[in-house]
């Protein structure tokens, strides 16, 4: 992992576009809302990319660089349509896609392992008959494991 990569924020978004977890690695609280907006607005681009991918029957999860504002936003969609969005700090050096994909893969693994927790389902609200509620539960504040795993990934990625 090249040391110059700096991860600012990670967002997990459910297939229904509900936020699962927005994790920022900066200190200030205002930034959190900013990354909420970044994740939300990047859904525009993700939708376009997904449509393009569907058109070409591509099965690639990695959606590439979504856009650059004051951070570089990358997207990734798991086969089950959970979207992972990361914001990298802008650098002058070239960022290789392979590095970004590696971050995404590890984040995906973290998510997968958390969702495998059978107790998540126990705690899902009874009246919701939808699956995504369970997914969203994974990012709920009372489930620390997922946050910890994401933190680990973030540390490794140089947050």
């Amino acid at each position, binding site marked *: 992992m090249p040391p110059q990569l700096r991860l600012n924020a990670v967002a997990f978004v459910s*297939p*229904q*576009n*509900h*936020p699962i977890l*927005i994790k920022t690695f900066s200190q200030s609280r205002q930034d959190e*809302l900013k990354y*909420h*907006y970044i994740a*939300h*607005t990047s*859904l*525009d*681009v993700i*939708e*376009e*990319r*997904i*449509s*393009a991918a569907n*058109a070409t029957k591509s099965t690639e999860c990695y959606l590439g660089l979504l*856009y*650059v*504002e*004051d951070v570089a936003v990358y997207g990734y969609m798991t086969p089950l*349509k959970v979207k992972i969005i990361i914001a990298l700090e802008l650098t002058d050096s070239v960022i290789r896609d392979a590095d970004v994909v590696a971050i995404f893969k590890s984040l995906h693994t973290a998510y997968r392992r958390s969702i495998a927790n059978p107790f998540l389902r126990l705690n899902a609200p009874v*009246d*919701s*008959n*939808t*699956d*995504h509620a369970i997914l969203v539960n994974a990012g709920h504040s009372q489930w620390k494991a997922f946050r910890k795993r994401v933190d680990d990934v973030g540390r490794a990625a140089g947050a």
Partner: protein
Amino acid sequence: MDPLDFGSLAHIRILLLPVGPIKRSDFEKWAYEIRSFENIRLGDIPADAREERARFMPGPLASGHIHLSFSYHSLPPSHALLSLFRPSDFPLGVIGIASCSESHAMSSIQSQFSTLVKNTFQEGSAYPLARNCFVFEEGENDANLGTHAGLVVIPGMMGNKKLYVGTLLAELCSNILAEFATVIQALESPLGNEYLNAALFPVLPPASDMPKPIDNDIPMRSSLPPLPHQSSQPELGTPVSLLRSKIPTPLITKRNSSIGPGPPTSPYRQASLPVQSSKKKLATIGAVSSHGRLFKMLGDFFLLAGRTMDASVWYNEAIAMLKGSQDNIWHASALEGLAIIPILDAWSAEKTDIVDGEKEPWSDTGTKLSQAIDLYYRATPPSDTESGYAFVSWFYSRAVLRYTTLLYAIWSAKGWGQLAFATLLNTGLGVFPPTLTNGAPSSQNAKRSSYGAFERLTVATGITRGLIADVLAQVHGPWLLHLGPNERISILEHTAAIYGILGYQRKEAYILREVLGCILDMIVCSRDETGGSRIAGAGLGIQGVDMGGTSQGSVGIRANDSTEGNDSILKLVKYICQVHGVDLEAIKFGSASGRPASLPSQGIDGDLDVPQEPFGWPELQIGIVREAIAVAEALPDYPSVAQFSLSALKTLHLVMSQGDQHHLFNTASKALSTAKRRGDSRYIEYWSGQPVVSIEILPLPLVRLPLEKPMSLLSREDDNVPPVLVGMTDPFLYNPRRLTAGQGVMLLVQKEAFDVVITLRNPFVFDLELSSLSLSTTGVAIETKPLALIVPANSFHPVTITALPLESGQLTIRGCVVQAPGGASKEFLLPLATPDEEARQERRHSTMACENGRSKYFGLEARPWERPNHRTSVYTQKADIKFLQCKIVSEQPLLRIRRTSLTHGAVMLYNGEKSSIRITLENVSALPVDFLHLTFDDSTVAPAQQALTEGELSVFETYETEYDLIHRPLFVWDKKKSRQLAGPGEKVVLTVGCFGKLDCTSGTIHISYAYCHRSQNHLETPPEVFHTRQLSYPVLVTVYHMLECHGLDILPYTPDMIRYAGDDNKAGHTQTSLQVENIEDWCIFSVEVRNTYGIPFEVTFEADHRTSSATALVPPGSTTRVLLPLRRFRLSEEQITQPIPTLSDRQFVVAKSNLSSQEELVQRELFWYREELLDRIRGSWKETGGMRHGDLSLRQQRLTLPMLDVLQSEDIRVQLSVHSYSGDENPAAVGSSNASSFFPPLDEFVYLHAEVVNLSSKQFTLVLDMSISPSEHVLYEGVLSGIPIGRIEGRSSRKYEIPLTFVACGRFDVTATAYIPGQKNSAGHGQITVFVE
């Protein structure tokens, strides 16, 4: 054209100003006429003869166009610094539009126009270069208005005004082009060039500073290449050397004038500028005073003049020079200008260039623009003044937008073509290209293009949306903060518009939020300023009128809030929220006038609480909603505040924290009250979902409940159906209709209030206040009062509403009308939960549930309100909806029980005691009662009836139970005896007989009454039903068990008994009553009576209708046997073979007993004899020393076969006697003391006389057997056994005699038995005792 548009660099801007008194509509009409000239061909421009002004004039036969754009506003003064850098931003020409009919007005128009122009443009400003005023003549009068300098009069009668206007415009352009030459002339001078290079954004030197060209033969023009296109390499030598040689002079002069970066508009303030700063600048300027900027300006002017060739030559020159000098901004600007030229050329060429294959035609332009963007980005204004940053940011943003617009235009026009050029040069972003609107008229709310349409464009052009968005993303950054609010808003607006067209709605919304922020900043800031001034200027009177300093401020005045534009801002807010998945218009406005007649009838399916899947990003949604509310509060638009808050509550309360919910609710209620106070006519419709969970009518109290009875019941008043068994008259064991009959419609009574219980639900965390809750009914009119209430947080809350039906008929309760405080009322229907309705709901729910969680539509198409549009498989079958119904019957009388003879409603009886209860009824209504009927119920009835229905009882037990029910009821009432009418206010006394029945603990008297013979209209068909009401009077019954009978026996009279009875003196009166004449005809009835109670009772049994009776005193705790002679009887054969009857009309149940026919016969015989016996014997008791009396029942007793034998009188009787014949032939009985004992003498001949009597009506053939014992002491003639008697007819007898003699003293028993031959049983029997002495 907007300055942000792509082609703005090549447009000559012309300001249109209304002059003098002109109506708005007129101005707009003429302005529209003028605006229709978007470009003018170069060939149409009249050339100026003067040589020095002809520099920018088009050459003869030049092809190309001048592009015009028109505006109504000039730039803000702060932009004056840019006058040389970006001349295309400034209005280069001014056209005044006036309308006039009088000639004398012309001069005033002229003066007004010049003042207006002077006011509009700052003094000393380089622009406008040309001006003209068009006076449009009104009316048809042909008055000669004369000519005035600077005014052009367009006569009203002129036919083709447009052509004329075009000519005038061309003239104006010609003037402008001529003025370009003047400006350049000034700048070409060494001094001018120094000015040009003095600052980043230089200004034209004031005319006073310009040295007058002394000799006309050295025009500056000569220093420039006369024909630029002749050499690609500009001749740098001459001007540069010329400049350099003159550097010292302008520097000195410059110091005097000292043009600073500040606004040059006020020359008198220049002295205050710090001298040292200009020094610093001058030091830098000296080194770089190249002609690069001048060349760039030449390029700009040529571009404006439509001479693209010249422009590109000069731009290239400029770029070459500026590149070296690090003058990034000018360099970038030149690049921008250069970039536009190909587009202009292509547009003029009117044909599409064939692409040369490798490169897209726009790639060159694109490269230049991106270079320019880069240069702008890197440029740092030399001074750290705010305006410097502002301008750099402004140009940077514009360059980015220009590049974006280029890409967008080509993309949206499906490639390089006329459509793209038109978008770039003429229409701008204001108009949707036809490729994206599919021909439909475009508007903000028009349906966005589909993904497919976007992709088609991308494929056609090779430009992806992502690319456009990437370029556009550069515009957004912290540098926007440097911009003034106007610029910032316009930049952001454009950005948002492009994002929107690209389909990046979230991004669009994000940018729009910032737009909103800017607008609100401005609103709030300006409000603060004006607010302050208002207070200062407050006086008695109209604002703005100076009342003089003395009369200050006694009355505060408040200007009407200008609400112009609020709607647009709110629209923006709503759009942003919609993109985030919050429907701020989930609750609509209702108008005050329409209430409540045009109640929006809530469809049943409207918003049933289908669990709505939450959509969106809760964290953002809440923030967005808060912002939206803050915006609405700042405007202020209080109804919208309320609408937003409540909509948000309705849609988002699931994800909202409690604090937020409270906050929103409070905000909404405050806003509503404020809006109401300010007289806003809008009402918020009811918002909080379906609040009504259930509606029930409370059943009337039993006393008031009317019962429907058919009229036919009245006609058969004297039916004998025992009321107790009425329930069992049904011929079917299981009757399904009986179940449904009980659930008829609910009956209510006219003019008597009833209660409705409504259950309300509040899903929120705060107490929900409802200002009115009333019933929504159809059918007959009811009178009810709306209710105001507060539903506690998070709970179900039952409410009772009282209503009064005013007429009779059908009443349907559809639901409730609910009104929240300050809102409009709304009707909520609540269909009856019939199985149909439930199935329908279930289906709806399952459809919804099925779609929940399916991401068939993703992204913004999945927003809750979009979804129904996509749904194609809708359950459409419309079931007819049933509502709660009840029937209102006409007014009914009302009785009440005034008093009864019982204390505490309790009666104490001895078993079998007869007593009576008096009940006094009072009619408390205004209607008479003409029908009265009593029914009774007691605690023994139900178990007995149940036992009967179970059918487990034997026939005999069944009969006993039924007999008990029918003939021994607890209460009896003689209908005939009592009065059945009670007028209003009258009293009726009812006497009810009461019978002490063992095991009875309670009873009820039901008094049904009605007013059935009502007077009615002749034309009406008489009603088929009438209604009764019922009064129930429960009676607590205690029955004491005191006497019990047992040991019933029937004994035959024997001769011995008679004898011994005569000796027995202890029996007292019993003994006498037992005396009977003929013991053969009598038997003795005997029963033991035990007194288990504490006081003695006198018991009397009567037999055979008082022919004989026996009375005994039964002391407490003792048992007394009562004996009573009873005449024997015989029942006919037909009677005893009848089956045991059932007393009710009950369906015949096959007897479960499996008795043989013989046994059955015996049973029937026993039964009938027992019935007869119980009929003949009547027992009664009397309290000794008291008044109480009653019956003693023998029904517990059983009759056995031996008893039956005794009781039953025999068919054939054999009478024996002993006779002797002495002397005469008449026989005489010997020594008989009575009929059963004889005393014949020893050893004498006597005759044994046997008479066989047939007592029955049948005839018998009999044989007689006799026996005498001991037989060895008797001598007789003939045989004793098997004596044939022969046939005996009914009611006749036959005699038979045997002579015999007794040969020993002592006692002989003689018996005779008559029998039917072949049968074993004896038919008749006789016995005597003979004593021989």
